């Protein structure tokens, strides 16, 4: 028999009241944990959408500068500025394509055949060569063209020329440079001959070490924008950072909502504890008169709040798994985000916050109980 045991007995003496207080904590923990998981999952979803572009610098002709495309000479300048990092010039256009009898439109990206493999992963087939009349198709385009027969090995007409599909690209998701999932990728030599062009629309620089991204970016800007603004340089790291900052503030906002419900639960614990103290004034007087010290009385009541908090936090933590699963499955579309370490940490965080709230709410009632005048408490009816 200890003070902890006394606290436990007092809680079970008023099980309905204690249950209600625990339910408050449970709801608070669930709210804070599942809101945290939801916010984190939204962040993870962004992360997945803008896939593998964190190491990319995209160079565009500066808006309003008179430059609308890059010449070979400018490409050479950019390549020099980028040092040993791979520079991939890209040209793009929109054109109508014909597969069999079906005519439709598609985005066409052109880049040096040797560079395609460094920018895009393939799902099937081979990368086209500069010399042949080959092309690759995006994975979504391939998936959507089952009826027209646009697939690996098929022939596709662009203008008056026919290209053979040598490969299918792996799905890439939304990017900041190019979006090849619904497009056709052709070697630049073919593009240049076919459209009679020798300029590029953008340059993608793949930076080998993400830490160099800022210095490479500065080097390109310095070299190209010497007299006037010729290029705009965008690095995806900066874009990603702003996206993540947005996701983080969503998380904070959602957790704030959870925290409010936990504060309400704290008030309910405070209320329960105050009732417990008021009802037991006489008992406290007896305990004090037969030699229970102030800090021992205080401990007894803090333990009560602690038990309520721990029970509520454990139940809430378990239920958070369930609601977290529902949240991620229904609202974000993939329950896998729940099994992320950070998501699980939010459950731990919610539980810790629940326990802390309970104990904090118990401090004042416990202090009050410990500082009752034993003589007056004994006389209390």
């Amino acid at each position: 028999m200890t003070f902890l045991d006394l606290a436990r007995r007092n809680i079970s003496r008023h099980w309905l009241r204690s249950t209600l207080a625990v339910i408050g904590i449970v709801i608070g923990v669930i709210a804070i944990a599942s809101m945290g998981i939801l916010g984190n999952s939204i962040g993870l979803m962004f992360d997945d959408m803008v896939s593998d572009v964190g190491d990319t610098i995209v160079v565009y002709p500066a808006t309003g500068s008179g430059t609308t495309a890059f010449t070979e000479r400018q490409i050479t300048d950019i390549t020099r500025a980028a040092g040993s990092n791979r520079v991939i010039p890209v040209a793009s256009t929109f054109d109508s394509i014909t597969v069999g009898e079906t005519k439709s439109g598609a985005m066409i990206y052109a880049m040096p055949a040797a560079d395609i493999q460094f920018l895009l992963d393939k799902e099937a087939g081979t990368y086209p060569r500069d010399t042949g009349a080959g092309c690759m198709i995006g994975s979504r385009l391939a998936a959507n063209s089952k009826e027209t027969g646009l697939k690996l090995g098929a022939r596709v007409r662009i203008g008056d020329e026919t290209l053979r599909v040598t490969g299918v690209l792996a799905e890439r998701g939304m990017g900041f440079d190019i979006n090849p999932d619904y497009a056709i990728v052709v070697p630049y030599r073919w593009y240049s001959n076919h459209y009679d062009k020798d300029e590029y629309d953008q340059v993608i620089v793949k930076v080998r070490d993400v830490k160099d991204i800022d210095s490479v970016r500065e080097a390109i800007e310095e070299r190209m924008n010497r007299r006037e603004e010729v290029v705009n340089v965008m690095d995806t790291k900066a874009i990603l950072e702003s996206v993540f900052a947005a996701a983080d503030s969503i998380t904070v906002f959602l957790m704030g909502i959870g925290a409010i419900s936990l504060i309400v639960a704290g008030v309910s614990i405070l209320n329960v504890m105050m009732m417990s103290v008021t009802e037991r004034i006489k008992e406290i007087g007896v305990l004090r008169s037969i030699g229970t010290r102030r800090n021992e009385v205080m401990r007894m009541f803090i333990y009560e709040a602690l038990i309520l908090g721990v029970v509520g936090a454990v139940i809430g933590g378990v239920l958070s798994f369930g609601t977290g699963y529902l949240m991620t499955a229904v609202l974000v579309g993939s329950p896998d985000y729940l099994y992320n370490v950070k998501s699980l940490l939010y459950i731990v965080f919610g539980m810790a916050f629940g326990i802390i709230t309970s104990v904090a709410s118990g401090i004042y009632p416990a202090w009050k109980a410990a500082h009752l005048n034993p003589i007056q408490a004994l006389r209390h009816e």
Partner: protein
Amino acid sequence: MPVIRFDNVSKVYPLPAGDVVALADVSLDIDEGEFILVMGPSGSGKSTLLNIMGSLDVPTAGEVTIAGRQISRMTDDELTLMRRDHIGFVFQQFNLIPLLSVVENVEYPLILKGGKSGARERVAEILQAVDIAESHFTHKPGELSGGQQQRVAIARALANDPAFLLCDEPTGNLDTKTGTAIMDLIARMNREEGKTVIVVTHDPRMTEYADRTIHLMDGRLVA
């Protein structure tokens, strides 16, 4: 060396309407093994005297020595330890802890003192000495009669082997027959165990148990 010594003790309660003098210049000695009765009408200062003897309260003036220690400058914790280690309280309303069983109630002061080994044996011994059957040990106080509850309360008061028992109207809530049995038990503890006993009461029949009776009137001792 007396167990309790009051040296010119006064207790004044400051109230907005004027000071209330609860005890005025009280001096007394209570020796070891004595059976003392404190009597007096309501408002005479009995409760204040009892509270100060029980180190629940400290005097405004004068000095009180309990078990060889002066209490007027003690901290709250020191006063609490004094109650725990040297004083056994018996109340009119028994004041057992409803959450605890009979055994646990008697064990509680021992646990407060940090005792572990042999505590249960000592508890059983004391409970047998106050005539509580072993079949009642695991009952909660509410399941016992008034007389039985007061016996358990006396057992609790004796648990830490105190210097004296302080009984506040111990028979006030009991019928005459049960009350007599309780007084006989207290007297037996005084006679056989040599416990110093102070009983505050209204009941004049108690004088036959006492070695000495202290009369209080308006906060002063009356010869």
